[in-house]
């Protein structure tokens, strides 16, 4: 087990700069997800840690050791690939033991490690089979087993569940979490699926265009997104945004009005620092914090474009009167229908505020949420 520290990591392909100075501190035994849209550099970052990419700059430390220039094989890591990368001509046992045997490990020790990995992953009865004879989930287990037998300090997993069907993905997700719990080793996991990232991780690195947009616990990302990108990326349906103006600020209370808001809205911030210059800001609110109300109570007005009924809840897609779109989540039996005019009330205590540069203004959270976030952080430190 080991902590990992990345300093100012840079990597480009020709004129395209993919990683633009990444800085990360991952604690010993932590499960961290690299999350971001396609092309954000998450896989390149993982491959850089694995030693599969030549870096343009920066350094990587694993524990006390600088591994920036160390060959991949000597980094004491193991990697699980997106398409499993199992050797099709070897049976499962050979797939697991291949690297060990060629590194001069004794037969007894190889057998011990292979049998141990097979026990952990419940693949003992598959050891004689070729990858072709395995299901997707079984292949994934073998790929993970190949990483386990190395007994590495760091596990790197590159979208390991993306080739599985939805049901199997959930099962494997649970198994991965249990595996991390059991091995207690540092794991870095690349995914574009925010559900995977939120459910598996101790902390999540959200990457955007080769930069770290935010590095925090899942609840921090959800309740305290650092910027517009994270706010829009985390959560489904995504957060709604409305451009408005700061019309007043008294201590930590900020009053917003204009830009389509029918009534002023007052938000409570963490500090009394002036919010924005210029005064134009972006207000963010999650779809489930919007209420359909009468005309007198509504902050915004619009026409329903589409209602998606999902059973327990319905997603209402609305075109706002002053331009822009918004999605509200209402109870499944709500009678709202398409082409209907609706008035929306935004729950002030759940609104997020972003300044002119798209950076979040720290808002005051309710006691319960803050306690939950603190609990998550405390668990990570422990």
């Amino acid at each position, binding site marked *: 087990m080991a902590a990992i520290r990345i300093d100012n990591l840079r990597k480009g392909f020709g004129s395209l700069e993919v990683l633009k100075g990444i800085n990360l501190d991952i604690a010993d035994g932590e499960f961290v997800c690299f999350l971001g849209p396609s092309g954000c550099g998450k896989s390149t970052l993982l491959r850089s840690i694995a030693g599969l990419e030549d870096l343009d700059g920066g350094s990587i430390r694993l524990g006390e050791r600088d591994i920036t220039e160390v060959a991949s094989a000597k980094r004491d890591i193991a990697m699980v690939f997106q398409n499993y990368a199992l*050797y099709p*001509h070897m049976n499962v*046992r050979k797939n697991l033991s291949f690297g060990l045997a*060629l*590194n001069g490990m004794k037969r007894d020790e190889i057998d011990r490690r292979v049998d141990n990995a097979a026990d952990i992953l419940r693949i003992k009865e598959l050891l004689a089979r*070729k990858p072709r*004879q395995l299901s997707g989930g079984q292949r994934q287990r073998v790929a993970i087993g*190949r990483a386990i037998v190395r007994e590495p300090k760091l596990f790197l997993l590159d979208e390991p569940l993306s080739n599985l069907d939805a049901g199997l993905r959930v099962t494997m997700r649970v198994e991965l979490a249990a595996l991390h719990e059991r091995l207690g080793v540092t794991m870095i996991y690349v995914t574009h699926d925010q559900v995977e990232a939120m459910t598996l991780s101790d902390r999540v690195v959200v990457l955007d265009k080769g930069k770290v947009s935010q590095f925090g616990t899942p609840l921090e990302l959800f309740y305290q997104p650092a910027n517009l990108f994270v706010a829009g990326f985390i959560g489904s349906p995504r957060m709604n945004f409305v451009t408005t103006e700061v019309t007043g600020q008294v201590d930590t209370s900020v009053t917003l009005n204009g830009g389509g808001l029918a009534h002023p809205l007052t938000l409570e911030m963490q500090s009394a620092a002036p919010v924005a210059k210029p005064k134009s800001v972006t207000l963010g609110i999650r779809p489930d914090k919007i209420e359909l109300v009468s005309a007198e109570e509504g902050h915004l007005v619009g026409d329903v474009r589409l209602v998606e009924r999902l059973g327990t809840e319905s997603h209402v897609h609305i075109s706002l009167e002053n331009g822009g779109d918004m999605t509200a989540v209402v109870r499944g039996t709500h009678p709202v229908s398409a082409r209907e005019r609706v008035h929306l009330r935004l729950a002030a205590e759940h609104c997020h505020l972003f300044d002119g540069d798209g950076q979040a203004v720290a808002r005051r959270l309710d006691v319960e949420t803050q306690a939950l976030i603190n609990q998550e952080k405390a668990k990570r430190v422990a």
Partner: protein
Amino acid sequence: MDMTYATAAAPTVAKRKRSAFARHIVAYLFISPWILGFLFFTLGPLVFSLTMSFYDWPVVGERTFVGLDNYRSMLFEDQQFWESLWITVKFAAIYVPFNIVMSFLLALMLHHIRFASGFFRTAFYLPSVISGVALVTIWSWIYSREYGLLNFMLSFVGIDGPNWLGDPNLAIIAIIIASLWGLGGTMLILLTGLKAIPKELYEAATVSGVPGWAQMVFITLPMLGPMLLFTFITSIISAFQQLTIALLLTKGGPLGSTYFFAMYIYDNAFKYFDMGYAAAGSWVMFIIVLLLSLGVMRWSAAWVYYEGEVRQNDGDGHA
């Protein structure tokens, strides 16, 4: 009621059958050029040559049925048959491994170079599409004792070049080298195979600390198995069919040292006009190549793996 129903249904079924038949006719018409070509230029000559092999069949004059006489005299009385076969086997024993190993090394090189790979790919492949006669013209100039490029280059390092095509020991080597000139086709097949191997297999091996030589032996070669088998068999076939280069470059000489089996068949047919005997020779060659190919196929079960293949489990999984 039943009869009425049957009568009413009958025309519909017949109509359906007719329309299906019409659809098939159209399909057969579309593939008829190939079928006719196969019948007249492949299957026809094949059956015809088999028939000929049981006859004493001069080009001019009456043909006589001789049964297996042609085969018997070829196998038990004709010294030249065994000599030409031995020369062909010697040629194949050297040509086949060289052809595969050199094609593989060349493919490996082209797979890894980044600079002008397209140019080199074309440059190495181009000789394999040059016609045999043009190729022999080039090589006869290269091998020329007085004016040849090869001896000219050897003179720079102080070597008095030998008579490549006039020395019985060197002539077959000269033909092997000239034959390898066309290895571009084999190289291209192996290059395609190399490009089809997922790079993650190598990355997984690299991360696991598998050294480069072991990646070559335990990943590249097994993954190329079907391609290697294919090139192995086609190389054997082309070795046994060796005719053009030897015929034009050495005419079987000097002292019969390059008198290949195919040339033996050719001479029987077009020099001695003994078509039945030549046809029997062709069938003997076919059987030899068939047996060799079957042997290789059988042997390949031990080292060729097909992705789609599902074999029996091998016990407890221990290698």
